[in-house]
Every structure is written in structure tokens, then in C-alpha cells.
């Protein structure tokens, strides 16, 4: 839907050359008798890259509806993950690339937030923290160095993380999905 630039506020989602952006800040300036100028700070919803565009009063932009749906991870199929909308039960295959590094923390039956533009999924937000089981506690890798305090373990989803040396195989760990780092060992109830 086409809207006047004056209607754009923080959190308006707009489409520029087919790419969705989330508006983060609107700076309105207007020299006395001159045209109003809107400097809009926005973030590309596909790659997260910030951008600033200057508009004038009377300019129009394309507003786009972007909504989040809860979806449950079902299974992996080639280079795709298949999720199911928990309300409509529709199944949606999603390229693993869309999840980037977060793909390695996706666990069976996990509920994620799928960011949808129309019927297209443009992003997957994992829960901030996930609990994953250690399946291999002495992993040697070339990139991660084992120090006196830290070592590398492999989790049930195949991800590897740096953890304190007391962590054992079979422990459940709380992982921060934004940074991919170990938070704590979860005490078994």
C-alpha cells in the first residue's frame, strides 16, 4: 500500500526495490519556508544492513505488512528446514541459508518465530536461549583452542561450542542463539 512519507513512523515496514526495510528513526527537519525533509533511518530486514534515505514532503513509499508467525520445526530435507505454522498447520520449507549461523541450533519440535512478508518467509528468529544436550565432550578442532579453563563440545544439533572444562557428555547446556555461546549448565530436575 502506498503511503505518504509523513505517515511513516518508527517500526513502519517499507518496501524499496522489492526489499523490506524496518524504519528505526524518522528525523523531520524543515527550513522555514522550505520543503519538509524526512531523513529516515531503516534496516534491511533481509541482511540487517542499516541505511538512511532522505525524502521530501509529498513523497510516497510502499508500506508492507510484515508479521511474525509461530512455527514448529519438523524435519530437515536437503538444504531446507521444514516448519509448520502452529495455527494454520501449513508447512513451509525454508532454505538453511536464511538462518545463517543460527541453523546449527535448530532442534526438533522447537518453536520459532517466522517473519513473513505476505506468504513469503523472510526471516526466522530462534528463541534467545535454547537448551541442548552435549553428545561429545572432547572435540578437537583447528579453530577453537582448548585452554585450561575452556574446551569444545559437540551438541545434539551438531553445533560445537566453547564450554568450561567441568561440562560432561549428557549434560544439558543453555546456549545464547544470538551469539552462539554457552550460558550455563542446566541443572537436572
Amino acid at each position, binding site marked *: 500500500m502506498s503511503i505518504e512519507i509523513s505517515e511513516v513512523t518508527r517500526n513502519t515496514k517499507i518496501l524499496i526495490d522489492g526489499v523490506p526495510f524496518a524504519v528505526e528513526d524518522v528525523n*523531520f527537519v524543515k527550513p*522555514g519556508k522550505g*520543503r519538509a525533509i524526512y531523513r529516515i533511518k531503516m534496516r534491511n530486514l533481509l541482511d540487517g544492513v542499516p541505511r538512511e534515505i532522505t525524502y521530501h*514532503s509529498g513523497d510516497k513509499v510502499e508500506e508492507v505488512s510484515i508479521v511474525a508467525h509461530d512455527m514448529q520445526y519438523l524435519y530437515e530435507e536437503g538444504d531446507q528446514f521444514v516448519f509448520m505454522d502452529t495455527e494454520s498447520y501449513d508447512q513451509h520449507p525454508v532454505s538453511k541459508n536464511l538462518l545463517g549461523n543460527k541453523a546449527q541450533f535448530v532442534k526438533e519440535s522447537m518453536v520459532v518465530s517466522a517473519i513473513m512478508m505476505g506468504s513469503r518467509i523472510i526471516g526466522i528468529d530462534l528463541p534467545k536461549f535454547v537448551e541442548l544436550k552435549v553428545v561429545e565432550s572432547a572435540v578437537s578442532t583447528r579453530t577453537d583452542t582448548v585452554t585450561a579453563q575452556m574446551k569444545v563440545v559437540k551438541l545434539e544439533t551438531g553445533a560445537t561450542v566453547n564450554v568450561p572444562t567441568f561440562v560432561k557428555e549428557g549434560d544439558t547446556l543453555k546456549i545464547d542463539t544470538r551469539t552462539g555461546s554457552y550460558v550455563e549448565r542446566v541443572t537436572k530436575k
Partner: protein
Amino acid sequence: MSRAETLRLKQIKANLKRRALILDSIRAFFKREGFLEVETPLLVPQAAPEQFIDPFAVNGWFLSTSPEMHMKRLLAAGYGSVFQITHCFRKGERGQLHNPEFTMLEWYRVDADYLGIIEDTERLVLAVAGDLGLGSAIRYQGRDIDLSRPWPRTTVSEAFRKSADWDPVLRHDPERFDLDLLDKVMPGFSANRPTVLMDYPAANASMARLKAGDSKVAERTEAFIAGLELANAYTELTDAAELEKRFRDVIQETGDSEVHRPMPRRFLEAVAELPACGGIALGVDRLVMLLCDADSIDEVVAFPRELV
């Protein structure tokens, strides 16, 4: 009353008390100068034809965007020098320095030109700062500002050639003018002194008289302090035919807009009898911001748009 509202109103109370003192001080200044305080309607049948000022429409009428036309009708009737503190309404204007409803101080001095009006402005701002006990040196957003007279003057031509490498008096490019004014010219103004930017290109004359002996520029000037555009002054155009022509150009250029802009006939009839005078519109909220060291209009207005 919500806790957030109570808290906010308590936080800005000192500013609003100072605001009241500033209004007293402004009135006292103009009474000493022999001006008559007037009131003009807020609900008007037409707004002044201005290309980039949008009025709010109310049942076929409009909320006033400026008291200018009615004040000039009083001047034409021989009221002498007049001033007014009033609310103005401009649709879509909202930002750190803008609220769609704001307070304007407008005055007209008979037999003065635009630079005479700037002298009034210098003396007014010093008088108000003096009444608040601030003297002529104030501190605003971490900068020391010396308000003493005379404020440095520069022409649009000089300022643009210095900071933006072009001369808008020689080349008409309104879009670039606004952007360069904001991004290059204003940042080039002294951080510690007010700036009087004068002699706007004839294309930006609005209701100002063209300069005697140089019709490429208009006798229009603006005062800036610490990055705040504070006031806009003219030697008033008293040629009704010329003004009607300028209005017609504006009405034509904005012809596709939804706002119906009829020709303000009563005003144009009065302009034919307008005495030689200068006039100015000064943003009271911005003056209060300056004297309260506030960086947003929301800190000097009790109920900005989102909180009305």
C-alpha cells in the same frame, strides 16, 4: 493521571515556569516599545498561500497557519505597530523542533525595514535574557553563546558561496537550496554567536519586498542561534498587484494538492493600504528552548502532539 504523565510534567515544570516568565517579558518589551497587542482568529476561511505550509481543514474552514494576513489588515486600518503571541497550526510538522500546534510571536513595526526588525529582535532577546537574570551570555547544549548586539550578518549569497560552493541568487534550485541550507550552510554558522542570514533569492521572497536597487534578492532575513532557526523577517511587500501575482504562482504550483487555496481577497484589498513596515514571525517555543537549554520542543510544551 498516569504516573508517566505526572513524572514528565514534574520534570518539565521548571521549563514551563520559565516559559511563563518569558511570555511576561516579551509583552513588557513590546508595551515599552509602544506596540499594541492584538488578537486575530484561529479559525479562518483560508490560509495564506504558501507552497510548503499545509493547513488543517475544519468543516470547510482552516486552522490558522500564521496571523500575518489579519495583522496586516489591522495595520492597513492605521493601528500602528502591533504584536501578537498566538498559536499556529501546520499539518504534518512534527520533529525535535516542530509540533503541529505551536506558539508564534509576530510583530510589525511601522516605518521599519527588515534590518530594523532584526534590531528589534536583538534587543528583545537580550531584554528577555536579562529579565531571566542570564545577561547576554547563555549556555545552550554545551555551547557558550554571546547574544550581545549586533549579531553577525551574512547574505545568503555569501553564506552559500562559503559553505556550499554555489550561489542561489544566481541559480534557482529550490530543492538543493533547502538541503544545502540544512547540511552545509547552517553548520557553517558560528557556534558561539547568533547569525542573521539576509537577502534571500527573489524566488524565495514570499511576502517580502525585493531589494531596492537589486531585484535579484528580497529583503527577507532569518535569525539563527545555536542551530535553531528562530525567526523570519521581511520588509513587507505593499504592492498588492505583485503579491497577487506571487500568490497565483503558489496556487498554481500547489494546484494538485487536496487543499483548496482560494485567493485571499480581503487581505489583498488591505495590502493596497498597508503602510511601509517590517514584520517578523518568531518561534516562541524555540526561544524558550534556547533559554531553558532544552534540546527538544517536547521539553518546553506541556502537551506535545502524541500526549494531547
